[in-house]
């Protein structure tokens, strides 16, 4: 059963259309990530679910109930904000219990839930401190604590890790994931970081320009990108999207689909799938190399196109050298040049 459903959502401010035709569902107990570049409408979508914005048209359902016209407090949700939204003059304990007091939960019950949340999050020692006396990670935990004590089935997170440094971000995202699984929460999580999305999500919704680009598991998005945008957004370094020409088609050995001229296609290939070969493939001129430790990033040019590939370990290729590259047909993704949509052929891509 889907815990959260958005049906035909449109949202506009004046003549600016922020969201159009959003349809999505999040199953109970699953973690759904809304992913996309800034300005794509992912935060607006989350705020619509929370009830902080109202859609211009369309309906929001939470746990089988149409909540489109209900205020946030009646939607049985909790929310973690980007800047944590902790009340600076209240202690950690008061911050965590703020909502329970507002909803007049009894004192013993409040005490029990506070203890439980503090246990889970390791906040026992900090309950009497003010937010200013906490580190970024601890503040994040307090914000999570507020979501936990609410004991509501749905938790919404708006870029919760964007204010933390890289190392802490990795720790916290694992913690959030395990917390979500342990407590069986239904979680909608907004981020612009595709690594975060890939590692944490059950399902990802990739958004672009106020619309949904693709909805699927992290593997779906990585292995079978539905559009050229998805291909280039997911994965690091991003997928190469090349204008097709006979030389490239020959290099990857993919069968050309019918009804498409070669020039109507874009060819997508991930840097990690490209191999350097001695005598086959097509030629590129190396224009830059970046040594990353585990592997080396090589940027080359062929005609007017830039191509990125990675090879294991350290590679020393002087700039200006010509190398030959190729990749297997199963690692090739074809997209229509006019619509950006994926084009299927017989021997392309990983068949699921």
């Amino acid at each position, binding site marked *: 059963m889907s815990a959260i459903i958005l049906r035909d959502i449109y949202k506009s401010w004046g003549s600016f259309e922020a969201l159009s035709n959003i349809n999505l569902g999040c199953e109970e107990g699953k973690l759904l990530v809304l992913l996309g570049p800034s300005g794509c409408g992912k935060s607006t979508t989350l705020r619509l679910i929370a009830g902080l914005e109202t859609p211009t048209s369309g309906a929001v359902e939470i746990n089988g109930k149409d909540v489109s016209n209900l205020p946030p407090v009646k939607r049985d949700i909790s929310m973690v904000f980007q800047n944590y939204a902790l*009340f600076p003059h209240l202690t950690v304990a008061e911050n965590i219990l*703020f909502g329970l007091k507002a909803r007049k939960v009894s004192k013993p019950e409040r005490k029990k839930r506070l203890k439980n949340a503090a246990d889970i999050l390791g906040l026992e020692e900090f309950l009497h401190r003010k937010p200013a006396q906490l580190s970024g990670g601890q503040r994040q935990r307090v914000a999570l604590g507020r979501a936990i004590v609410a004991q509501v089935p749905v938790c919404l997170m708006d870029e919760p890790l964007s204010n933390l440094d890289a190392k802490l971000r990795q720790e916290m995202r694992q913690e959030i994931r395990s917390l979500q699984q342990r407590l069986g929460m239904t979680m909608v999580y907004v981020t612009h970081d595709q690594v975060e999305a890939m590692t944490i999500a059950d399902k990802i919704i990739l958004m672009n320009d106020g619309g949904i680009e693709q909805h699927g598991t992290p593997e779906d998005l990585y292995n079978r990108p539905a559009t050229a945008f998805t291909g280039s957004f997911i994965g690091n370094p991003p997928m190469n999207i090349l204008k097709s020409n006979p030389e490239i088609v020959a290099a990857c050995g993919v069968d050309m689909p019918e009804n498409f001229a070669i020039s109507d296609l874009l060819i997508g290939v991930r840097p990690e799938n490209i191999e350097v070969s001695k005598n086959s493939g097509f030629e590129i001129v190396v224009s830059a190399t970046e040594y990353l430790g585990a592997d080396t990033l090589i940027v080359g040019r062929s005609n007017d196109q830039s191509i990125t590939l990675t090879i294991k370990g350290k590679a020393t290729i002087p700039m200006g050298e010509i190398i030959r590259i190729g990749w297997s047909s199963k690692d090739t993704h074809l997209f229509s040049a006019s619509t950006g949509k994926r084009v299927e052929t017989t021997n392309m891509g990983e068949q699921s």
Partner: protein
Amino acid sequence: MKPMLELRYWNHINGWLLVLPAVFMIGLFTHYPIGSTIYHSLFSTGNAVHPSVYTGLENYSLLMEDDIFWKVLKNNMIYSMCTVPLSIAFALGMALLINRNIKGRFLVRMSFFTPTVLPMIAVANIWLFFYTPEYGLFDQVSHFFGGSSHNWLGDPNSALYCLIVMVIWKEAGFFMIFYLAALQQLSPELREAGVVEGAGGWYYFKRVTWPLLMPTTLFITVNAVVNSFKLVDHLVIMTKGGPDNASSLLLYYIYENAFSFWDTSYAATLTVVLVLILAIFTIIQFAVVEKRIHYQ
């Protein structure tokens, strides 16, 4: 060792040199006048015939027996205790009202702020008309509803309260600006978190907005208290402290003694009392209240 000592020595000299301009100005214009006032309060007022002589605390014992002094002091207390909390309450109310997206917010904000821009003398003249018996604004409204006319400023029972109403009208707009600035510093994310957590308007105000506004409230309170003792321009225009000192305030009484009755020593004595009152207020506000305030 020697260069170290020299360095410390120069650090001291440097520090003193840096604060010297400020110390000089404050000394000349604040501390010296206070000292001089206290000194003069211990002498009789001299004139061509009787030169000023040292009289010790005689001026102070005169003051204790001065019915008018006690009356203006009581007036001033009533005046402060009405104008300070009420102008703060109105200021906060107005700031909360225009801190949201309402239509014509700009106009409302401007009209709230206008009284502040007007000089006190002009405001006093406007209100003098409002309070005029028979054809003043209030009496005209009262006539319209069949009421009788009232000599607002001429009645000892209403004169002081007439001034209080006017001062609140004048000051609230000014204090509103500070509250508005403070409100706009509050993160909208906090309000949204409050909404999601189920905090209603009043609960949120009580637990979040009001505590976070406390630094502003303290600042405004200090200003309002000081204003209630130092602003007397309107008295000159509207009542001259009358009738029968019913609307006179401490500073106006000092002014009368110094420049109408030319009793400068007694005026100095009254000034010492005024400075003491203000000092006590300030100490209470900063020493006691400030400790309970959360500063971000």
